């Protein structure tokens, strides 16, 4: 496990948490949306995380000096993380009686997204804290690298 691999994993973790925050924000913003491009009310987004192999050193992570630190990422098992945003399938929506609403059905009920603002707020906080945890892991790795560079100086 090289220090650069830790940087990559932390980076992927931060990206994943950003996507979770994105989904939560989207859910909050569309908590009352009754019209979507695919028809019907908005359906809440959820983020599914899965492990993924580390990227082979690409544009942002390659420098010749680093080749000292980077192990070959090819063929290594998945240790990073990737996030996929999915639409919650079980979402039925909440029916509210509002005959004056343009999107009300024949009986006068409007289907609203079943977004729970409280749940989304908790998701938001959880994503922010997890992001911070990744930042801390990154900083720790960098401190270790700095300490290694200072070996033998004292």
């Amino acid at each position, binding site marked *: 496990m090289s220090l650069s691999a830790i940087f990559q994993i932390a980076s992927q973790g*931060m*990206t994943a948490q950003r996507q979770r925050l994105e989904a939560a924000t989207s859910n909050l913003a569309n908590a009352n949306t009754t019209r979507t491009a695919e028809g019907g009310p908005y359906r809440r987004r959820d983020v599914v995380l899965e492990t993924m192999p580390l990227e082979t050193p690409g*544009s942002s992570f390659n*420098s*010749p*000096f680093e080749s000292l630190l980077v192990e070959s990422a090819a063929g290594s098992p998945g240790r990073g993380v990737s996030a996929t945003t999915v639409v919650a399938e079980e979402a039925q929506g909440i029916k509210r009686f509002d005959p004056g609403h343009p999107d009300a059905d024949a009986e006068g009920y409007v289907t609203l997204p079943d977004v729970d603002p409280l749940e989304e707020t908790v998701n938001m906080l959880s994503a922010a804290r997890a992001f911070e945890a990744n930042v801390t892991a990154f900083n720790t790795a960098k401190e270790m690298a*700095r300490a290694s*560079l200072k070996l033998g100086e004292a």
Partner: protein
Amino acid sequence: MSINAVNSFAVQTPLTPDRMGDAAAGANKSGSSFGSAVRDAVESLERSQKGAETEIARAVAGESPDLHRTIISLQTADLSFQLGLQVRNKLIGAYEEIMRMQV
């Protein structure tokens, strides 16, 4: 540039009298000389700084979706620079040590 290049410099050019002329004359031999070791180090540092520069340019142009990727590449370039600096210090230290030698 790799540490191996520095190692091979040490191994391939022991300072025995018959090899000293070789080392001085063959300065352009496949990365084994002191001069090319330093030059390789500086060139690779420049490349890592350029990589960070590209990331910043992408972030400023709005092409990079993740701010943290930019910052991480900056930090990585910083670490590479620190590593290069340490290697340079060691190389220059060795050079000065040799230059101070009484003949």
